[in-house]
């Protein structure tokens, strides 16, 4: 994990009980996790009365350092020993290391879900709807009498917030072909997961 000097400096300040007493340390730590993971996080997450006595510049620096470190640790799936080593290097005492690791462990799953959801991917199919109709005639062709399906795939795009849909028509045979191929794919998936 590559961490900048700024992060290290921020942590060194956090380690110092003269700058951050136990209570302030815990509050800042929680604030860092909250601002990363809580979608509705208040911008005023650092506005707690017990943090008022600390220089706002120092507060922001340490908050940013903590948040940066948490993201890097999450990205690389850091284990407890990696975390401990780094925090020791930043002069954290045993108690603060334990606190950090506990908070990290509590929030690990949410963190990994968040990080995993960032990134580009192909348009993702989320749902399908279908319509069965019986075609009787058109103005060009009478006495048709054949069933037809209209299938609509709901798609989610990472690039744009829009939710386009892909619609197409198919005959019964074509739908059987489509379903057959999708079933092949899911059987293949099942076999692969059993390896």
């Amino acid at each position, binding site marked *: 994990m590559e961490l900048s000097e700024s992060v290290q400096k921020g942590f060194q300040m956090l380690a110092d009980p003269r700058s951050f007493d136990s209570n302030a340390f815990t509050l800042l730590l929680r604030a860092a996790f909250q601002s990363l993971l809580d979608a509705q996080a208040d911008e005023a997450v650092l506005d707690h009365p017990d943090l008022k006595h600390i220089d706002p510049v120092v507060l922001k620096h340490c908050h940013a350092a903590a948040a940066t470190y948490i993201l890097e640790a*999450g*990205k*690389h*799936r850091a284990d407890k020993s990696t975390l401990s080593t780094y925090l020791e290097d930043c002069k954290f005492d045993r108690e603060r290391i334990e606190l950090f690791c506990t908070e990290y462990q509590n929030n690990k799953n949410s963190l*990994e879900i968040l*990080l*995993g959801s*960032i*990134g580009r*991917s*192909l*348009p*993702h*199919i*989320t*749902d*399908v*709807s*279908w319509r*069965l109709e*019986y075609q*009787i005639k*058109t103005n*060009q*062709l*009478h*006495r*048709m*009498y054949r*069933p037809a*399906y*209209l*299938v609509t*795939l709901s*798609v989610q795009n990472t690039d744009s917030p829009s939710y386009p849909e*892909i*619609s*197409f*028509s*198919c005959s*019964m045979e*074509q*739908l*059987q*072909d*489509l*379903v057959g*191929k*999708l*079933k*092949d*794919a*899911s059987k*293949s*998936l099942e076999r*692969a*997961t059993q390896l």
Partner: protein
Amino acid sequence: MLLELSEEHKEHLAFLPQVDSAGKLNVSSDTVQHGVEGLTYLLTESSKLMISELDFQDSVFVLGFSEELNKLLLQLYLDNRKEIRTILSELAPSLPSYHNLEWRLDVQLASRSLRQQIKPAVTIKLHLNQNGDHNTKVLQTDPATLLHLVQQLEQALEEMKTNHCRRVVRNIK
């Protein structure tokens, strides 16, 4: 159901018996064109309405052609009816139609924002046709959604076998 031929149509088709079997035509290009148009109209309307053999024969009878020519026209109709109907069906308003589906299993191992992942996905290439244009769309889905898609579409196929649909198919003719 009889095919209704207007006077104009009958005039155009009146040219047909004059066609020399040797192939040389001694008439104006206009007459030939009308003749072809008349014949086209006769065949496409018959195919569109899917009129029976008997009805076709009766419709053509009013033109006063020879027995031989009538037989020829009937054969022409029966031989080409299916293809003409296929072509006519392509003229209807249409949506993209399904052509083919290709799939691939992928597992995402890492991304810029998260390492050491095992994220299975199914990548799908959907081939669609519209008005002769071939279109492909590349899409992705996860295993759970794939199962959901299969289940939903199988239900769709099952619908045709229900009593309700069978009754409709039987009774609308």
